[in-house]
């Protein structure tokens, strides 16, 4: 089957990130925490004053940027995968029940979502960070706790649309039991939407991790993350703009890749768009 360029791009970036994250200790040229105070603010190697030893330069403490970016991919990938999947599962299951069962269940879940969405998300994560302490697990929990509502709402709406479809009525008229209808008629028709949402959420998770790192609420200072690199680079943006630009580039490319991947996956799991491209 022919896959689109966007899908290949997304998959390639995601796989590269995953491989780099897993093999960081072997592929990183330096220890990301090793300071070299004689070589601070080295520009990337392609600048006139750059050096081969530090391919993407060094930061204010002389730490190797490339190595830090590679280690930063670990945090990004972990958050993107774990937080997005957990938020998606929690929200979708609640959305599915809410949309399919309706009535009291729907009323309770929908009110909960509304109250939840009224909380300012940043405030919620600051509170969580205060209670749970800084760390990657806090970021993951914060994203799950805040973003499940996104899935719940959209999945609920889609389930309600599906439930009123003729083929669901047809399934009722051949006497299929309700749980069977949910599993074989409704869920498969919600999957393309779920996949798209999930990949968008993975992009969002990477950005949220960066924001929390930037605000100093993510991992401890001794771990390299893209967000904390942007935050540190911000102070020296006039002398060494690449300190900020490089991790930002990483974030932008990853988020773009996630979105492209989502589009591609949706086409793959949806027979309608699958045949439309044939």
């Amino acid at each position, binding site marked *: 089957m022919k896959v689109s360029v966007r899908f290949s791009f997304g998959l390639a970036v995601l796989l590269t990130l995953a491989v780099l994250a897993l093999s960081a200790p072997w592929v990183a040229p330096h220890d990301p925490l090793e300071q070299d105070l004689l070589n601070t603010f080295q520009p990337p190697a392609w600048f006139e004053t750059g050096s081969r030893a530090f391919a993407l330069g060094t930061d204010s403490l002389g730490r190797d940027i490339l190595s830090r970016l590679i280690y930063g991919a670990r945090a990004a990938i972990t958050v993107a995968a774990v937080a997005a999947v957990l938020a998606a599962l929690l929200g979708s299951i609640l959305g599915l029940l809410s949309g399919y069962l309706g009535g009291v269940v729907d009323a309770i879940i929908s009110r909960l979502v509304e109250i939840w969405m009224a909380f300012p998300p940043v405030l919620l994560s600051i509170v969580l960070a205060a209670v749970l302490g800084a760390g990657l697990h806090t970021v993951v929990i914060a994203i799950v706790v805040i973003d499940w509502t996104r899935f719940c709402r959209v999945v609920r709406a889609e389930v309600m649309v599906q439930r009123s479809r*003729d083929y669901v*009525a047809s399934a*009722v*008229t*051949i*006497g299929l*039991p309700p749980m069977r209808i949910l599993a*074989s*008629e409704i869920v498969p028709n919600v999957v393309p939407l779920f996949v798209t949402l999930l990949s968008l959420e993975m992009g969002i998770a990477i950005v949220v991790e960066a924001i929390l790192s930037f605000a100093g609420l993510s991992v401890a200072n001794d771990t390299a993350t893209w967000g904390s690199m942007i935050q540190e680079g911000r102070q020296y943006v006039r002398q060494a703009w690449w300190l900020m630009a490089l991790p930002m580039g990483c974030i932008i490319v990853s988020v773009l890749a996630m979105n492209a991947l989502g589009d591609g996956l949706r086409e793959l799991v949806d*027979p309608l768009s699958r045949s439309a491209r044939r």
Partner: protein
Amino acid sequence: MNPLLSIRDLALRIGGQPILRGVHLDVHAGQVAGLVGESGAGKSMVGRVVLRLQPEDAHVDRGEVAFDGRDLLWMSEREHATFLGRDIALIPQNPMTALNPVARIAPQMTDVLRMHMGMDRDDALARALESLHDVQIRDPERVLRQFPHELSGGMRQRVLIAIAFACRPKLIIADEPTTALDVTVQKQVLRLLKRLQRAYGTAILFITHDLGVVAKLCDTMSVIHAGRIVEAGPVAQVFLAPAHAYTRALLAATPRYDRPGEALQPIPAALTEQLWNEARTLDTGAA
């Protein structure tokens, strides 16, 4: 002989608005009963009540729907579900939307067989193949592996007819099964339906607005207007000697191949007005 399906004085309202105002209707075993009416007359709603597919805000005020001597209307949902697919099946109105778009044809056909006939996968597949032959689909092995969007409207309707006949039900409710198809395909599908109906001795409640189709296909017919049956009887009798003014008006508004030159008469506004007034009087009388 007792009718297979007997609807007595069925009244239903949606959001306080009366939709059915005391419908009487009989379908005898092995016969095709036509239910004819304009859009909004309530004809589809009758079929839906039998299948319990009426909208959630619909409220049945009174009446009786007896199937094979059992009252479908007031039995538990669980008990009612045991009839669906096995004894009573539906041929839906729009074949384009009645099949699950993300599932292949095979599981959609075998579900009902495995569910009600206790067949295993292979037996059900063999039976599905056989029923596709029955509905004259070319290359049925291929069709079983295809997705609904890969089939034409006529083919999808044949698949749905095959599903409806799969468990050899006693009654099939056909809700305007040819409205969404073009005329030539319509004719083939109707012929097919008639052939299967005869072969398996199935009773059909045929809901339509097309008097021509009723004349060709049905044994008995009922004319519905504003939620009540204004005339019922054997097809030949109703066509040759319509007793009710509305039936006469409907016939005059239908093109006839045996009288091509005749101008079509619209249904007189005064008659419609009068019928609606009668219907409203019925509502206030019941309240």
